[in-house]
């Protein structure tokens, strides 16, 4: 019994203390911003631990802590749910003091607001820094008859509606990328949605579907080959042709970066930006991210913001064309 009581007290103490300490130091120093940051900065990730977003955010944030003034650090907080909506809302609703920011892939910012269920819009959030790309590529099985884009196109043109491909969800970046291509080529392919990139790649290897639009890092097998990348640039995958290389004017970039509430003071944004920028040059970060297949694609606050805005528009047009939103 004593043990249980002790454990209980320990747990209460652990859980109770952290936010309490945080807020007390917050009050004493927060008024004057010449000492930012005076406590740790929370980085909200809208997905559970272990996914692509979490991995990128954690890897870079851990290194970025080294470059943060006053010996402070970034702390990752996973708030999963609603395909990233819940976590992004959390950032949107946070006090604009710079102590709660978020990492987000492009989807929750460029696609989900169109769906009308998000409490935020792209305008109500500020882009801080673009960190890495999560390039999406069309994978087919190793023994499939198509070795390159041309052979594949010939097949789908002659067999409309026969080619099935797996994605991590309807209206996600992967589905929209393929739909954009369908539109340009005048072809019909069938999307079979799964719950995650991992599941959709397994559906391909297990032979459930003919192809899969996923990030190559989630395909943990030698049984797949890549036909082409939907990205606008090579991003380190030198032997994979992009659609642009193939003479087709379609590009769907998927990337992630740090966002913050819109009203965070510029000087604080600059401090956060600089810490992350230095982290991207850290050899350990470079080695880890590239080892997992995430190309580092730095973008400053302005270019990140304008890229998000133009992708937001593109996604909106496409979603309306597909009839997924009115």
């Amino acid at each position, binding site marked *: 019994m004593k043990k249980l009581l002790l*454990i209980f007290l320990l747990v*209460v103490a652990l859980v109770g203390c952290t936010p309490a300490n945080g807020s007390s130091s917050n009050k004493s120093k927060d008024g004057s911003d010449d000492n930012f940051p005076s406590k740790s900065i929370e980085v909200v990730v809208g997905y559970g*631990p272990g996914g692509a977003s979490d*991995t990128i955010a954690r890897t870079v944030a851990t290194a970025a802590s080294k470059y943060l003034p006053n010996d402070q650090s970034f702390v990752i907080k996973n708030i999963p749910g609603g395909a990233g909506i819940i976590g992004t809302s959390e950032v949107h609703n946070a006090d604009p003091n710079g102590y709660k920011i978020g990492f987000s892939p492009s989807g929750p910012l460029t696609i989900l607001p169109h769906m009308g269920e998000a409490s935020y819009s792209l305008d109500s959030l500020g882009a801080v820094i673009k960190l890495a790309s999560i390039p999406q590529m069309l994978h087919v099985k190793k023994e499939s008859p198509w070795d390159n884009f041309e052979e594949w196109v010939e097949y789908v043109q002659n067999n409309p509606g026969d080619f099935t491909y797996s994605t991590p969800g309807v209206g996600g970046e992967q589905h929209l990328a393929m739909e954009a291509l369908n539109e340009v080529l005048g072809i019909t392919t069938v999307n079979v949605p799964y719950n995650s990139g991992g599941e959709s790649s397994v559906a391909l290897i297990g032979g459930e579907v003919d192809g899969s639009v996923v990030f190559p890092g989630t395909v*943990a097998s030698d049984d797949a080959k890549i036909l082409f990348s939907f990205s606008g640039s090579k991003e380190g995958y030198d032997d994979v042709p992009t659609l642009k290389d193939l003479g087709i004017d379609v590009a769907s970039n998927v990337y992630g970066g740090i966002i913050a509430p819109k009203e965070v003071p510029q000087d604080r944004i600059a401090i956060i930006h600089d810490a992350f920028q230095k982290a991207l040059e850290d050899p350990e970060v470079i080695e880890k991210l590239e080892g997992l297949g995430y190309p580092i694609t730095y973008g400053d606050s302005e270019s990140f913001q304008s890229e998000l805005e133009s992708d937001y528009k593109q996604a909106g047009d496409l979603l309306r064309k597909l009839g997924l939103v009115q």
Partner: protein
Amino acid sequence: MGENILFGLLQVFEWKHLLAMIAGVSFGMIIGALPGLSVPMGVALMLPFTFGLPPTIGMLLLVGVYCAGVYGGSISAILLKTPGTAASAATAADGFALTQQGKAGKALNMALYSAVSGGLISGFILLLVAPQIAKFALSFGPPEYFALALFGMTVIAGVSGKSLGKGLVMGCFGMLIATVGIDPIDGVPRFNFGTNFLISGIDLIPALIGLFAISELLNQIEKKTKALSVKVKYEKDRFGWSDYKPHTKTIFKSSLIGGIIGAIPGAGAAISSFISYNEARRTSKDPESFGKGSLDGIAAAVSGGNGTTGSTLIPMMTLGIPGDVVTAVLLGALLIQGLKPGPELFTNHGNLVYTVMIGVIVVNLILFVQAKLAIRWFAKITQIPSSILLPIVFGLCLLGSFSVTNSLTSVGITLFFGVLGYILPKYGYPVTPILIAMILGPLAETSLRQSLILSEGSYLIFFMRPIPVIFILLIVLLFVIPLLKGKWGNRLQRA
């Protein structure tokens, strides 16, 4: 492979690895045993500590938390009827019945022996036949998942108690609850009534804590119990081979069920423990005792649950797909260390892989020793006066549900389901079918709709492949025919 196993064996017994596993097991057992705190949470809490550790030590620590946590869930299920995990929900009814009879020690020992047996069998499956099992897991496409989910639903018949009709009503209710949130196929939010918090759906853990733990607390308050255990005399808890022997068959069968179901991503410990429990009840000579303090029931549910612990690592390490939340965290631990799962992991980091595999087996041995020492203390919890124990448990339950999404909305969900779980059984409506339907509902819905996309709308897809056909035949043979026979028999008797 032999070389690798030897190397792994040497690695595991290095002091720092042993220390990591011992620490993981203690932490996991406590987290699992505390009502309201779940295994995924324990593993996630430990995850940040592994970032600074070498990958092998980190993985062994997490594996320790995982295996011990799954067992620990049964401790609170038995003693307090507050299962910490969905898997231990199947243990709660029988375990708590024994506790009330003053046989908590016996129930706890049965659970421990079954958990360790299940864990060891699963560990050997992982070590010896991982590649073959991974191939089998790959053959599971949408039609197979749908058939498995249907098969799992038949468990509802076993846990409905007196009235199958009322059980089915509760099953449908659970399915309905599972539809709240984002539609898995079209991505459209459903039944969220314009709110943000329902978009992500109703999490299983807060609902589970409400349905089982909060409702039981309300029951205890209503009964004004002085202490949970009725008998004052504390039964000596000698537990040996002679107590284990009658359940050998059940444990072995359940562990194999666990080993297979664990390897199928997305199925997991909860489904396995319920299917094992149901199977043991079906083949038992004394099915009436199930739910009223059957040791065989505990053995089946616990070994079915722990039987998945090793094999869930198979799809995670070989294919990079996590079968449940825990393995998703373990996958994260690998990725953050810069290690990519898949065939490359086996060729480039064979040392790590085999050390972890052997670690699963050693962790279970450590668990046995630690838990054996702890059980006598755990069993005394039931003698704590209710006026002290129940508020603590209540606090922990709310804390646990809060921690799932770090928001008060999940606490609200817990309280809602707590009241539901208190009222419904009073009118003869069992709550376990709600849980089973909430676990299987999303799996059934997603896989059914995926199958129909693949087959362009034809239901024949479920009859064209071997695994779904086997499941459908099993459903008919094991459940539909006995049900019809029962009805028939009754009619004949009446005539």
